[in-house]
């Protein structure tokens, strides 16, 4: 049935990433040997990236429902209701392997892909965030990768025209050979005008939209489903090239045809391009799909069916059109200078038929391509329990003041301004709180509503105790949204782990997911979309388990959001939440004492909820003048960040006698916030918090131009800020 295709050999099957038993599955399903094109289609549909074959069984344990959830996982992006007929559409996705091989293009196409996921559903993107994990700063490739990835993230978002409002940047030697680039996009849509992938109706035209198809990115998804080795550089041709201009046109054209009521179903071409999108539309709609590749707009001549089906050329969409709207839709696409071609139709057969040059190149059962994909319950072993570090047994090498100065000028905690100033974070005119705070706040159209957006995870906690680490990632996202006054609504998860075929890695995955599920349940913070990225491993060494959590919260009135900067002198500083002085896995223990050790801080989800609800209440009541959650680096680092933001210092009481000072100032106990209030509100706040059993003590007063702890050397804010702001620019400039 096919011309000029190579014969199927065991080597060819193996080079498609299909295991012998998986190939057996194909033979059984078809009752014959697949054609070369069909083999390509199977490899695209059944790789880890597209089929979630190792993770599916565990993802089922995540809570995905709430009254405000319109669409949970399984579509292009999750959708939540924010009232007034408006919906927020969002998702986060990784582009790790391509970004390591070609950082600029890898990052741009990561951003482009996630934006497409959001506007495919009918939403106009209003914000992007990202979580970037790089190797140790001393690794020879790190500077090059930071430079390329940041330029790429900015290059795409800035040109497309979406503000990049927040994110995380970290450095750790475990990402030396495998960086992480996780991009999140958030869009706004009318709740009753959400578009889905499921086709409906027989003999409906299937239309190809957007850029032309080239030979770029063939087998990109398969690459993303294998470990790296020293020859990874040779995989550069599998990296796609992004064109933000084409995507901007595609956005405007898609929103226009959606508004005109032309669209029955729509699906972007992401991983595994035409194959995945066509199969998804048919399988979800319980219909067959007949594609004629002779009609596909191509960038180069002589492309085979195999190449067209597996190309990951960017900025393309597949759509089922209302037949009577064909002329109108085509005119809109022509106006934007984009390709528009009818490339097939829906059929009643439930077969996926691909024709090219008069031949049938593939004829496969469409539903089984998805439903019969392998499903593995891979062996997993729990991570060993690490001992709890006793603070008194840690020997501090520096004074509190010296340690603070040093920590703020180190990669983990230093300002990431060098990064986010390369992203246009004000376009749209709706950015209420810019990067650098707990969560970004973006106004919804002309207000009064606002969205609180954040991305969080603490990989060293996840490595030390996957369950507590998974809980902590969700709790911190919830806390960051709370700290600006938002009501946390839902999350998207981007689960980055090592090779799932190693039981220890699988154990980390299973543990983190259980932790995420527990926190989502306890905090009413369901998962509505996500992405799994496994095989983040080079030469057998895996990354730190990194389940990035993207959180979305709602503010009824964006003008009432809180920020972390101290607002005036003489405001009492309150510490809300319980402090034990937990040093295990703290930044202090690792970066000052050079011990990356111990059990991470446990997360008490009931305390998280109770403390957070109280803080949010104080923000809404207008009693909180500044709010910051306490996380990496502990109490003193959080205080310094609040002081540096607007140059108002703090006069602080000495650590309480029961806790050693370095554990008090740098311990990373969870569920804590720093809140400042007006002096006049102090008593009523204490009374209220006592009534609901929320621990709260006054630890000092705002004022001056220093961080002045009783009995310690006072630290000038200018000195702190110099170290805080200069580490990253100096590093990137190659200064020692």
């Amino acid at each position: 049935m096919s011309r000029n295709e190579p014969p199927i050999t065991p080597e060819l099957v193996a080079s498609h990433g299909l295991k012998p038993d998986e190939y057996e599955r194909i033979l059984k399903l078809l009752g014959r040997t697949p054609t070369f094109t069909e083999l390509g289609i199977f490899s695209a549909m059944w790789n880890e990236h597209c089929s979630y074959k190792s993770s599916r069984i565990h993802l089922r344990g995540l809570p995905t429902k709430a009254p405000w959830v319109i669409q949970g996982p399984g579509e292009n992006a999750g959708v939540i209701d924010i009232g007034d007929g408006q919906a927020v559409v969002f998702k986060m996705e990784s582009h790790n392997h391509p970004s390591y091989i070609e950082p600029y293009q890898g990052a741009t196409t990561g951003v482009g892909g996630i934006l497409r996921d959001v506007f495919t559903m009918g939403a106009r993107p209003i914000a992007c965030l990202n979580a970037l994990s790089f190797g140790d700063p001393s690794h020879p490739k790190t500077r090059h990768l930071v430079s390329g990835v940041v330029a790429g993230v900015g290059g795409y978002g800035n040109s497309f025209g979406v503000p990049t409002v927040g994110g995380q940047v970290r450095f750790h030697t475990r990402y030396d050979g495998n960086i992480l680039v996780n991009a999140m996009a958030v869009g706004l849509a009318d709740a009753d005008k959400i578009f889905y992938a499921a086709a409906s109706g027989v003999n409906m035209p299937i239309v190809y939209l957007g850029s032309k198809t080239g030979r770029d990115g063939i087998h990109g998804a398969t690459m993303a489903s294998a470990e790296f080795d020293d020859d990874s550089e040779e995989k550069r041709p599998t990296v796609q090239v992004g064109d933000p201009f084409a995507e901007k046109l595609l956005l405007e054209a898609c929103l226009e045809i959606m508004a005109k009521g032309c669209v029955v179903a729509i699906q972007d071409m992401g991983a595994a391009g035409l194959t995945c999108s066509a199969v998804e539309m048919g399988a979800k709609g319980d219909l067959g799909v007949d594609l004629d590749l002779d009609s596909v707009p191509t960038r180069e001549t002589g492309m085979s069916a195999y190449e067209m089906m597996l190309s990951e050329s960017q900025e393309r969409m597949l759509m089922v059109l209302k037949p009577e709207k064909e002329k109108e839709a085509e005119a809109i696409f022509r106006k934007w200078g984009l390709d528009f071609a009818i490339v097939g139709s829906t059929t009643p057969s439930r077969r996926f038929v691909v024709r090219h040059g008069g031949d049938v190149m593939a004829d496969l059962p469409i539903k089984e391509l998805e439903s019969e994909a392998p499903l593995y319950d891979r062996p997993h072993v729990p991570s060993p329990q690490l001992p709890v570090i006793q603070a008194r047994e840690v020997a501090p090498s520096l004074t509190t003041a010296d340690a603070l100065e040093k920590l703020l000028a180190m990669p983990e905690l230093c300002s990431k301004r060098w990064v986010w100033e390369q992203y246009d974070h004000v376009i749209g005119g709706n950015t209420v709180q810019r990067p650098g705070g707990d969560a970004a706040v973006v106004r919804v159209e002309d207000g009064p509503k606002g969205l609180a957006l954040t991305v969080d995870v603490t990989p060293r906690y996840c490595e030390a105790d996957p369950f507590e680490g998974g809980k902590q990632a969700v709790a911190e996202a919830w806390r960051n949204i709370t700290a600006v006054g938002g009501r946390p609504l839902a999350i998207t998860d981007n689960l980055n782990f090592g090779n799932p075929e190693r039981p220890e890695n699988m154990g980390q995955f299973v543990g983190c997911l259980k932790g995420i599920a527990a926190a989502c349940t306890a905090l009413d913070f369901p998962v509505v979309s996500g992405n799994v990225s496994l095989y983040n491993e080079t030469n057998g060494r895996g990354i730190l388990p990194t389940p990035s959590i993207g959180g979305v919260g709602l503010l009824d009135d964006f003008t009432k959001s809180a920020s972390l900067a101290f607002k005036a002198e003489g405001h009492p500083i309150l510490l809300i939440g319980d402090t034990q002085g937990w040093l295990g896995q703290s930044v202090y223990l690792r970066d000052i004492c050079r011990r990356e050790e111990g059990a991470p801080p446990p997360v008490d989800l009931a305390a998280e909820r109770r403390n957070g609800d109280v803080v949010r209440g104080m923000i809404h009541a207008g009693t909180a003048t500044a709010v910051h959650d306490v996380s990496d680096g502990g109490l003193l680092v959080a205080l310094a960040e609040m002081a540096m933001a607007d140059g108002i210092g703090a006069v602080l009481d000495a650590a309480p006698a029961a806790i050693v000072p370095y554990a008090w100032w740098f311990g990373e106990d969870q569920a804590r916030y720093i809140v400042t209030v007006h002096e006049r509100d102090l008593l009523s706040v204490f009374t209220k918090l006592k009534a609901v059993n929320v621990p709260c003590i006054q630890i000092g007063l705002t004022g001056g131009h220093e961080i002045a702890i009783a009995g310690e050397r006072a630290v000038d804010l200018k000195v702190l800020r110099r170290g805080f702001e200069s580490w990253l620019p100096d590093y990137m400039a190659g200064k020692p």
Partner: protein
Amino acid sequence: MKSAVLVFPGINRERDMARALRLVSGREPAMVWHAETSLPEGTDLVVAPGGFSYGDYLRCGAIAARSPVMDAVRAFASDGGLVLGVCNGFQILCESGLLPGILMRNARLRFICHDVHLRVERSDTPFTRGYNAGQVIRVPVAHGEGNYAADEDTVRRLEGDGRVLYRYCSASGEIDDTHNINGAAQSIAGIINERGNVLGMMPHPENHVEDTMGCTDGRGLFAGLVAHLERAA
């Protein structure tokens, strides 16, 4: 004030600009597609907004400058009509010959997005009458290619004629290399043409017009234009 916002493919701050014009002038601007050959009847102000017209894969603004609608804009300007170009709009006005000079890559070769201070050099133009001469305003920049350059003669003439309206400066108004964010000649952030009816500037006053968003320093530019046109009418 009846304004028209030009929409080239790849422009992305047209909605920000339309909102600022609506909020300050009380009138919704007309959005004019690049393929149009004329401007709406009675247009008082033409605005070329920010973005990446045609992806800016060639020189920034070079393709947009050759769009059909730009002939109408050139005719409008030569009749004395007011034209404002912001960011990519500034680049387009330079490329279309309405303003002298060009915008090069930022001196540090990176895209920059943050608030900057601008010194308003004079207040007796339609584009600055909402401010006092010497006033310092705070507005954001977001560009990769904002480094204004022209030959020495041109720069001398710009300075001699008082055609530099906005300059990058410190919070207290000092002009120095530290605050010249992109390496522009003479710290130039915005200039007018000889006739004084065409302004191009890199920063984004349209993003600082609302109290609730934290800063209204950009309002003066639009309010000044409204006042100028009302007086002319």
